[in-house]
C-alpha cells in the first residue's frame, strides 16, 4: 500500500466498526484490518486494481449502486456495508455467472481444498443454477513441462497476466480471444517459455494454472508444511516446503512473509527435488586398497578419520590441515567447522566458498566503512530514488533483489543506471537493462575502466559533495590525481561508452537523495574485484551519498550463506564476528570459551592451501560440500594437489569429482533435512527448518563435526543446532533473529575518518590504474562463464524440475557475430583456445553483446578446460570466469 505518514489518516466505518487507515488505502484493505474479509478474485495487494471480477461489491453510503471495494479508495467518514442482504445477493449473482462456465471438476482439481471459488461457492450460492446453456469448453492444450493450464476452470481475473507483467516484467502470458472465450495462453500454440517463477501458479485463485511437478499427487489437507529458507541464492527467500509423509510435494511462498514477500524464482519454486535425487550418498564410504569405495558404518568412518587426523597432527602439527566448507551450510555448521579446524585440529587454514567472490565485497566494506554488511535493506532498494547496478545480471543471479529493483523503477520511478555487459534486448526472461534510465553497455572485462569513467565524470562535472574537499583534502586530491592519470580518450576507447553517457549517469546518480549501488558477480568474481568495490565506495563518498540514510554499496551474495560464512569466521582472515584473525582480545576470549589454544600460524586461504598441499606442507584436508576439482580450472592443478595429500575427507551429498579422490566420504544432509540459520545477502539471519528425515544415513554437517570431535577426545557437544546458535550469540552478541527486517548498520565514523585521512592510500598506486587485456587475433571472443536463472552451482542440476527448463549448456552469442561466423541456433560449434577445444551447441541471443560469448557455469564440465586461473594478490580470490576463445561452426543443427 501507498506509504504515508500519520497525519493523513482517514476514518471510516466498515460493518459498524470504525477504523483509521492511511489515505489512499483501498476499501477492501481497510475492511481486512477490522476483520471483514471481502470475497474477491481479481484483487491482489501486489497488483494494481483491475476490478474485473465484480466479486468484491460493497455498499457505500451516499454512493449510487454497489462499488468494487478493490478499486475504491477510502474517504473520510465513509460508511461501508459488506454484510447487508443486497450485497449478498449481488455477490451470489456474480458467482452464478462465473459458475455458469465453470466445469465444477473439483474432485480432479489440484486446487480443490484451497480454492477461492470453492470457498465462496460454499459461502454464497445455492446448489442450483438458472443457467441451462452448455458450458464453454476449451480444447485441452499442452502448456509447458512444468506448468499446467486447465482453462475451463479460469475465472478470467487476469491475476496471472498482471503478475507476469507488473511484478515479473516478463509479460509471457496473453489473454487471447475475448469475452467468455478468453483463454490464457503464451504465444499462440507455443509452449510456455518464461522465467518459470511459478508466480502465475501461486496467484491463480482457482485451479486454472497448476504445477505439473505435483500434479494429482496430493490434496491440500494431506500436506505437512515446514517454513524454511531457500538454498539457491543469497536472497534468502522464505519458502514453505509441503510434504506428504516423507515425499516432497511442492514449495510455496506467502504474500507478506519473508524478504521475498511471497515472490519466488524458478529455482525456489521448482528446484526442490535436488535434495532427494537418487544419487545421494546413503552411507559413509571408506576407500579400499584397490581405490574403490566400500560402505562403512559411521563408527568405522569416524574412527578412521579421527585416527588419521590424530596421527597427522602428532607428526606434523595443526598447520598440516586444510579445511574448506561450502557456504550452503548453516551458520551453526560454518561456525562449528571453523571451531573444529582451529580448535580441534589447530589449523588456521580455513576457508569457504565465500572466497570465490563475496570476500571482494566484504573486505573493502570493512576497510572503508567498518561494516561487513549492507548499510541498506531490500526496503531501501524499493524506496531508493537512484539505483546503480554494476556488473550484475540481477535477474539471473539474485532474482528477488531484482524484483525489488523492478519495483523501485516501475512503481517508485527510481532512476536506474545499469553498467552491464547485457544488451537491452527483450527475451523470454526479463532484462533489467530494459528498465534502465541510463545503460552503459560494458564488456565483462571492462568494468574497472568504466567505473573510473563514472568517477571521472563526478570530478569533471563538479558533482563532488561540496564539503568533502575541506573535510578530506588529502583523499580528494589523491583520488583526483589518480583519476586524472587516465584520459577520457582512453576511457571512451576501451569501454566503448561515450563521455556524455558517463556524465549523464553520474548526474542522475548524484541528483538523488537515496542512492544505492548494487554490485554483482561481474565485479565480485572478476579480476580486480576488491579494487573495483573500493573505487565504488570512493564514488559514493565523492558524491556525498556515503553514510546517508537509504544509501550504500551492496555486494550481492551468490550463495545462500556467503554472508554467514564470513560472519561465522569460516574464511581465512576472520574469526567469528567477523573479527580479524589476529585480534588479540577476541583470540583470548575464544581460547577461553573453546578451552583450547588457538593456532599461531598465519592463516591461509583456499588457493594457498592447495599450493601448500602440492608443496607437501598440507598433509590432510577436510572438504565439506565443495567441489574444487570441478569449480576451478585444470590449470589450478587442484586435482594434483589433492592427490598429493596423505588423507582427504569429503563431506558431501553426492559423489563429486572431488569426493571421488577422498579417503573417507561422510554423507551429509541437505538444507531440507536440518535445522539452523542462513544469513542472506542483506545480513538478515533467518531460521532454516528440517522438513524431511535425513536421506539414508546422512547427518547434518554440524552433527558430524560434533561427533568427530568427540571421537577425537576434544568434544564439542551440542544437543541441537540451537545450542550452537546460543554459543554464536555469546561470541557475537545479539547475532541475528531480531524482527522482520535486517538491521542496517551505519558506517563506523572512526573507520571512515581513518580511511579518508590515510586508509585510502592503501593500494591507491594500483587500484585506479587502467590496464587492458588485448585479445589475440586468433581468439577474438571473450568467453564468460555465467550464472543462469534456472540453476545454482551444480547442486540444482540434480533437480528434475529445473532440468526440464534447462538441462544442458549452450554457447550463447550475438546475432551479428553468429551471422559473421555462419552460425545459427542449434548448430554445433567448436570453442577453442590454446588450452583445448570443446564442441557444444550454439544459441543466438539478442542480449549477448558483440565479441562476447557466454556459457552457463552449471554445465561447464567440458568447457572449463578453456579457462585460466588468476589469483587476486590482495583478496586471494581465484578468478576463472573469463577467457579468450575462437568459435567455428562444426555442423548444422536440425532446426
Amino acid at each position, binding site marked *: 500500500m501507498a506509504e504515508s505518514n500519520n497525519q493523513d489518516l482517514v476514518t471510516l466505518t466498515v460493518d459498524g466498526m470504525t477504523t483509521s487507515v492511511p489515505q489512499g488505502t483501498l476499501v477492501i484493505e481497510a475492511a481486512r484490518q477490522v476483520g471483514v474479509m471481502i470475497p474477491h478474485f481479481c484483487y491482489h495487494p501486489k497488483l494494481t486494481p483491475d476490478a474485473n471480477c465484480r466479486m468484491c461489491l460493497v455498499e457505500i453510503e451516499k454512493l449510487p449502486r454497489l462499488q468494487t471495494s478493490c478499486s475504491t479508495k477510502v474517504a473520510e467518514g465513509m460508511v461501508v456495508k459488506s454484510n447487508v442482504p443486497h450485497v449478498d445477493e449481488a455477490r451470489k449473482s456474480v458467482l452464478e455467472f462465473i459458475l455458469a462456465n465453470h466445469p465444477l471438476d473439483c474432485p480432479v482439481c489440484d486446487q480443490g481444498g484451497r480454492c477461492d471459488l470453492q470457498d465462496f461457492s460454499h459461502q454464497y450460492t445455492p446448489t442450483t443454477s438458472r443457467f441451462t446453456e452448455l458450458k464453454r469448453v476449451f480444447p485441452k492444450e499442452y502448456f509447458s513441462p512444468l506448468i499446467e493450464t486447465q482453462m475451463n476452470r479460469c475465472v478470467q481475473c487476469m491475476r496471472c497476466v498482471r503478475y507476469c507483467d507488473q511484478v515479473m516484467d516478463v*509479460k509471457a502470458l*496473453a489473454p*487471447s480471444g475475448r469475452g467468455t472465450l478468453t483463454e490464457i495462453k503464451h*504465444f499462440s500454440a507455443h509452449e510456455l517459455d518464461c522465467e518459470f517463477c511459478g508466480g502465475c501458479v501461486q496467484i491463480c485463485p482457482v485451479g486454472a494454472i497448476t504445477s505439473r511437478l505435483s500434479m494429482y499427487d496430493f490434496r491440500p489437507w494431506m500436506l505437512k508444511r515446514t517454513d524454511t529458507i531457500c538454498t539457491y541464492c543469497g536472497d534468502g527467500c522464505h519458502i514453505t516446503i509441503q510434504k506428504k509423509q516423507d515425499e516432497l510435494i511442492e514449495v510455496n511462498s506467502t504474500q507478506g512473509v519473508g524478504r521475498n514477500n511471497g515472490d519466488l524464482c524458478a529455482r525456489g519454486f521448482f528446484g526442490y527435488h535436488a535434495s532427494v535425487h537418487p544419487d545421494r550418498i546413503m552411507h559413509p564410504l571408506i576407500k579400499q586398497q584397490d581405490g574403490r569405495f566400500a560402505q562403512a558404518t559411521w563408527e568405522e568412518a569416524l574412527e578412521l578419520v579421527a585416527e588419521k587426523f590424530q596421527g597427522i597432527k602428532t607428526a606434523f602439527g595443526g598447520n598440516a590441515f586444510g579445511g574448506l566448507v561450502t557456504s550452503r551450510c548453516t551458520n551453526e555448521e560454518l561456525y562449528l567447522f571453523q571451531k573444529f579446524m582451529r580448535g580441534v585440529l589447530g589449523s588456521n587454514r580455513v576457508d569457504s566458498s565465500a572466497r570465490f567472490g563475496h570476500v571482494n565485497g566484504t573486505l573493502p566494506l570493512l576497510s572503508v566503512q567498518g561494516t561487513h554488511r549492507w548499510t541498506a535493506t531490500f526496503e531501501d532498494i524499493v524506496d531508493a530514488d537512484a539505483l546503480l547496478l554494476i556488473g550484475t545480471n540481477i535477474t539471473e543471479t539474485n532474482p528477488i533483489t531484482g524484483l525489488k529493483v523492478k519495483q523501485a523503477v516501475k512503481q517508485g520511478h527510481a532512476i536506474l543506471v545499469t553498467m552491464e555487459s547485457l544488451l537491452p534486448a527483450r527475451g523470454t526472461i526479463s532484462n533489467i537493462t*530494459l528498465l534502465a534510465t541510463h545503460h552503459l553497455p560494458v564488456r565483462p572485462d571492462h568494468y574497472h575502466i568504466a567505473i573510473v569513467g563514472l568517477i571521472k565524470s563526478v570530478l569533471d562535472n563538479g558533482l563532488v559533495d561540496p564539503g568533502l574537499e575541506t573535510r578530506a583534502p588529502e583523499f580528494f586530491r589523491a583520488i583526483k590525481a589518480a583519476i586524472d592519470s587516465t584520459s577520457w580518450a582512453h576511457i571512451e576507447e576501451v569501454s566503448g561508452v561515450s563521455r556524455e553517457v558517463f556524465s549523464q549517469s553520474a548526474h542522475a546518480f548524484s541528483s538523488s537523495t537515496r542512492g544505492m549501488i548494487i554490485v554483482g558477480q561481474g565485479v565480485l568474481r572478476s579480476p580486480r574485484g576488491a579494487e573495483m568495490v573500493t573505487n565504488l565506495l570512493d564514488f559514493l563518498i565523492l558524491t556525498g551519498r556515503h553514510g546517508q540514510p537509504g544509501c550504500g554499496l551492496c555486494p550481492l551474495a551468490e550463495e545462500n550463506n556467503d554472508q554467514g560464512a564470513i560472519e561465522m569466521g569460516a574464511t581465512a582472515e576472520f574469526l567469528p564476528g567477523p573479527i580479524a584473525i589476529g585480534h588479540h582480545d577476541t583470540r583470548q576470549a575464544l581460547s577461553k570459551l573453546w578451552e583450547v589454544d588457538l593456532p599461531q600460524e598465519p592463516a591461509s586461504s583456499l588457493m594457498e592451501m592447495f599450493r601448500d598441499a602440492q608443496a607437501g606442507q598440507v598433509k590432510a584436508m577436510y572438504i565439506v560440500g565443495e567441489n574444487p576439482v570441478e569449480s576451478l580450472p585444470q590449470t589450478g592443478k587442484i586435482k594434483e594437489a589433492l592427490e598429493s595429500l596423505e588423507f582427504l575427507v569429503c563431506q558431501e551429498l553426492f559423489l563429486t569429482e572431488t569426493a571421488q579422490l577422498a579417503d573417507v566420504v561422510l554423507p551429509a544432509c541437505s538444507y531440507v533435512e536440518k535445522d539452523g540459520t542462513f544469513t542472506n545477502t542483506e545480513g538478515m539471519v533467518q531460521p532454516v527448518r528440517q522438513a524431511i528425515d535425513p536421506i539414508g544415513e546422512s547427518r547434518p554437517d554440524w552433527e558430524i563435526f560434533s561427533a568427530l570431535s568427540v571421537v577425537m577426545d576434544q568434544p564439542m557437544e551440542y544437543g541441537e543446532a540451537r545450542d550452537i546458535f546460543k554459543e554464536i550469540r555469546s561470541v557475537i552478541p545479539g547475532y541475528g533473529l531480531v524482527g522482520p527486517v535486517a538491521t542496517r548498520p551505519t558506517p563506523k565514523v572512526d573507520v571512515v575518518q581513518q580511511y579518508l585521512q590515510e586508509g585510502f592510500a592503501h593500494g591507491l598506486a594500483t587500484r585506479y590504474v587502467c590496464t587492458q587485456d588485448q585479445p589475440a587475433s586468433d581468439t577474438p571472443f571473450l568467453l564468460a562463464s555465467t550464472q543462469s536463472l534456472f540453476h545454482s552451482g551444480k547442486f540444482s542440476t540434480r533437480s528434475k524440475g529445473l532440468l526440464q527448463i534447462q538441462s544442458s549448456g549452450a554457447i550463447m552469442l550475438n546475432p551479428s557475430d553468429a551471422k559473421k561466423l555462419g552460425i545459427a541456433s542449434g548448430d554445433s560449434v567448436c570453442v577453442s583456445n590454446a588450452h583445448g577445444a570443446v564442441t557444444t551447441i550454439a544459441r543466438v541471443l539478442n542480449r549477448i553483446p558483440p565479441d562476447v560469448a557466454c556459457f552457463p557455469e552449471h554445465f561447464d564440465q567440458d568447457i572449463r578446460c578453456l579457462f585460466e586461473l588468476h589469483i587476486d594478490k590482495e583478496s586471494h580470490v581465484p578468478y576463472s570466469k573469463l577467457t579468450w576463445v575462437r568459435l567455428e561452426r562444426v555442423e548444422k543443427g536440425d532446426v
Partner: protein
Amino acid sequence: MLAEKYQDHIADLLARYPVKRSALLPLLNLAQKEEGYVSESAMKEIAEILDLTPPQVYETATFYTMFNMNPIGKFHVQICKSLMCGLVGSDPLIQWVQQRLGVGPGQTTSDRLFTLSVVECLGSCGTGPMMQVNDDYYERLSEERVGRIFDELKETGNSSLKSGPFMVPEPISR
C-alpha cells in the same frame, strides 16, 4: 520482413503516437494487408519494433475478430448474419454458399481461392442479404447472384456485381 519493406510507412506510424505501443493496431493491419492474415513471424517482428513481447502482440491480435489468425484464401468472403440480413434470408443463403464452396465458416476451399466467414453487421442493413469480399461490398444477394460473383472472381479476379464506389447512401427509388 515488414521492417525492410515498409520502413518509411512504419516510421510514419510510430511518429504519430507519443507511446510506441499505440502503433500496435496499425502495424497489425499492415501485417494483415501484406499476408492476408497476421502471421507468427509478423507478430514477432511487431513485438520487436514496439518493444513488446510476442504474447502481448498476440493478445491484441486475437481480441479483434477482424484480424485473421490463419492464412486465408485469395478471396475472403464475409457474409453478414446479423438480424437485418437474417430477416431477408441470409441464413439459407449462408447454407447455400457452404454447399457451393464445400467449406464451413472459418474454412478455406482446397484450391485456396475462397475463405468463408460469417460475420456481424457490416452496416448495409437496407440492402441485405449482403457480403464483403476482400475490400468490396456485394448487396441484395441471391443464390444466383452469389454464384455469378464467385464464377467471375474465379475467372477474372474481379466481379462486375460489386457495389459502389459511392460516398453517400443510394437514393431511395420507388
